[in-house]
């Protein structure tokens, strides 16, 4: 079974600085997708970034980028120029055609002014 592990329950960062959230996963599949979702206090789940496993190039979305290491089964999220609005729970998730999305336990990120 697929598992997703986020080993950092909580993190904090100063506004305008860079922070990296870690995620590892376990799977025997070769074709899958990885996601980072943001959950602010409003509770809404918001897609931050997605990565297809067959792509070697790391995905980027504005201030958000990933470091995808397929052999190591690692998928970290880097947030550059952190903003107060980035304060939220961040969930790493794994999905594939044969298995539906599995989530990590989350990392609570606080951006300090």
């Amino acid at each position, binding site marked *: 079974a697929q598992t*997703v592990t*986020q080993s950092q329950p909580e993190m904090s960062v100063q506004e305008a600085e860079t922070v990296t959230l870690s995620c590892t996963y376990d799977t025997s599949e070769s074709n899958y*997708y990885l*996601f980072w979702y943001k959950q602010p206090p*409003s*509770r*809404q*789940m918001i*897609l931050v970034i*997605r990565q*297809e496993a067959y792509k070697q190039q790391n995905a980027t979305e504005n201030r958000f980028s990933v470091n995808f290491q397929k052999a190591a089964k690692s998928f970290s999220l880097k947030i550059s120029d952190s903003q107060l609005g980035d304060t939220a729970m961040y*969930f790493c998730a794994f*999905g*594939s*055609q044969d298995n*539906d*999305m*599995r*989530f*990590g*336990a*989350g990392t609570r990120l606080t951006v300090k002014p």
Partner: protein
Amino acid sequence: NAGVTQTPKFRILKIGQSMTLQCTQDMNHNYMYWYRQDPGMGLKLIYYSVGAGITDKGEVPNGYNVSRSTTEDFPLRLELAAPSQTSVYFCASRAGWGATSGSYTFGSGTRLTVV
């Protein structure tokens, strides 16, 4: 675009009562899901559906039932509510896997308390 709509947003149930959480999507997605999120935890899959008339169990199906009579609607039924079912419930949908799909669209969640 309404996306995924869940109702109600909040509900308090007494032990042993039953209720249905409603979920509707207007994106013509075949795949729909119900997750629960316990405090400080990630999301766990309760039930899912790959199309109208087809449903299957996820990780934590006990105490719940679902139906999928139309593409748009995927209600979750709680029978004989128990305190262990106190949680936030999310409905989600997605199109098929592909270059621009695969990611889920989530509803805004239902906070359920069983007392």
